[in-house]
């Protein structure tokens, strides 16, 4: 899991580094600081399981095995992007990897994930669908409609809510009353668990239980994972100077960097060495470098194709 988190971190930091070159001409929503959720969940999944994601989809996509070059090419608007350049960073998907889709409208992918689970149930497949959602999407009615149906039909689906405390610049407390947030899961009859979203093992343990429940026909779960977005809502920069959140809060969460937390643990256990980590990082840096080179070398989509494929 450390590997996967490091790989995502390296990829996203490189995106941030290069963003000012203005070659990636689309909005980007980085997951830096939130990698443990995607990785912890993905490690509980199997081939054939599906995930759906949101505007902030890079980590989910990569953790599930989405093609790195196709993702970067999509950000660069290239023909070889996963959407052939048509979607941009908020539409990542990878059919081979089980990344069904990502959607930029808050809440929109939630029912789609439930629909994937319905398909599994109808086809009596042993698979599970995972829905990544942000804390703000709990405010959207469509979450509740989806949760109700998932519970009603005992669908093999897991709602993974990443509570990073903000919707853009608006704090959770300015959008939702103060009460136990997991109640929004259990009120619908979902198996609801609250966990530390920066602890990849905790995430993985909870996900494994939820996956197991889903595969055994025990129905859907709701995992509430507390975490924190380090950079600005949209774009490559830090924005703590804006004043919508305090530097103290940011530092509190950065001290709980999910990667550092795991590294410390593994180092102290002797499961990895500093050198291993350096080697991993170096490996990922060159992988990302190579992926960027490939993506940048790829052609832009041919404008004559722009009107193709409106209908199947």
């Amino acid at each position, binding site marked *: 899991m450390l590997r996967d988190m490091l790989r995502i971190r390296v990829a996203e930091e490189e995106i941030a580094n290069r963003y000012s070159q203005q070659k990636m001409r689309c909005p980007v929503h980085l997951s830096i600081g939130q990698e443990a959720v995607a990785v912890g969940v993905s490690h509980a999944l199997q081939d054939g399981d599906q995930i759906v994601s949101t505007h902030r989809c890079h980590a989910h996509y990569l953790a599930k095995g989405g093609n790195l070059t196709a993702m970067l090419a999509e950000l660069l608007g290239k023909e070889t992007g*996963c959407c052939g350049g048509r979607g941009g960073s908020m*539409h990542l998907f990878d059919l081979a990897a089980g990344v*069904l*889709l990502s959607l930029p409208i808050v809440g929109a992918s939630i*029912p789609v994930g*439930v*629909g994937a689970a*319905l398909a599994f149930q109808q086809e009596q497949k042993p698979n599970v669908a995972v829905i990544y959602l942000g804390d703000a999407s709990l405010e959207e009615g469509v979450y509740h*409609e989806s949760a109700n149906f998932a519970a009603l039909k005992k669908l093999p689906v897991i709602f993974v809510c990443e509570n990073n405390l903000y919707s853009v610049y608006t704090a959770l407390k300015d959008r939702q009353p103060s009460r136990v947030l997991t109640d929004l899961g259990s009120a619908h009859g979902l198996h609801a668990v609250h966990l530390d979203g920066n602890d990849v093992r905790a995430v993985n343990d909870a996900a494994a239980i939820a996956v197991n429940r889903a595969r055994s026909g025990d129905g859907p779960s709701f995992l509430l994972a507390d975490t924190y977005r380090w950079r600005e809502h949209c774009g490559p920069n830090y924005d703590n100077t804006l004043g919508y959140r305090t530097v103290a809060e940011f530092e509190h969460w950065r001290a709980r960097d999910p990667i550092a937390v795991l590294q410390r643990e593994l180092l102290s256990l002797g499961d990895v060495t500093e050198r291993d980590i350096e080697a991993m990082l170096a490996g990922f840096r060159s992988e990302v470098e190579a992926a960027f080179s490939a993506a940048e070398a790829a052609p832009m989509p041919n404008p004559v194709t722009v009107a193709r494929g*409106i209908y199947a």
Partner: protein
Amino acid sequence: MPEARVITAGAAIREALDLALDKHPESYVMGEGVADPGGIFGTTTGLVEKYGASRVVEMPVAENGLTGIAIGSALMGRRPIMTHQRVDFALLCLEQLFNTAAKSHYVTNGAHRVPMTVRLIIGRGWGQGPQHSQSLETLFAYIPGLKVVMPSTPADFKGLLLGAIADDNPVIFLEHRWLHYVKGAVAEGYAAMALDGPRRIHDGRDVTIVASSYMTLEARRAAVALASRGCHADVFDLRMLRPLKLDEIIASVRRTGKLVVCDTGWKILGPGAEIVAQIVEQAFDALKRAPIRLGLPDHPTPSSLALAEVYYPDSTHIIDAVAGLCDLGEGDITSARQEVLDARKGVPIDKPDPAFEGPF
């Protein structure tokens, strides 16, 4: 050739659903009431008994979420057939239909397909009022990536519904409630129709009339009354609003030089606007007179019978429009109007026209 019997459009829908569920194992029906004793005005009756609750899925009252769920299942290869008892309820799920369903194929560069049919029923009559009788076809026809079907005959209800279900795109299937009662010859067995263009339903060289859904009946009635007075209309049942294929209609206007378009919904920004605009663009020189559009006036549907009576255009309005374009004599106009009024047999305007029972 399978044999044709005379059945209602409602029965034709039910037959199509039955055949589709049988033919496409990945298909399923979902909607509020699909498995209840009402069975969506009888169009789904008996299906749950035959195919079980996992193929005929009763749903919570949650149009937006369930639309997204249907879409998700479609992306995974299922073939959902959703039903809402009124078009009006679908206003809740437009985000999913317009963003997720309509765009997935295009956005993923062809990788995703959304083989989904959405049956939407247009209410009318018995004081349905402002929020239970909207037609709203423009909303759907405006969105690239959707297909929009508006059948009028029982054979089309069956064939186009089968075609919609077999289609790998999201198809909006707009059913005028009153058309469910209409009877016509419908072939037995599975025979999906292509989701193609309009169909000529009355021949003539004097004027071109384009109508869709329920207005097709009014147009046919007007055309028959006009024909016996020497004015011959080329009448088209539009059938598909998106994609909109106007070649045949344009060819007709090139002959007649005159055009009347009859919308089932509001006239302003109705499909008639697009049809007139395209015809003007493509057959300007052939037009002898300004085309005329008919449609609902620019306000909500009033509930009271006294107000509904002046809300809905009918064959008399079509006769008036044609009369103006073709310079009919006063006597012919009066008697043609009388003929169509008589056909209605004095049945109040808030009940289905018994003379429209068919078969035609």
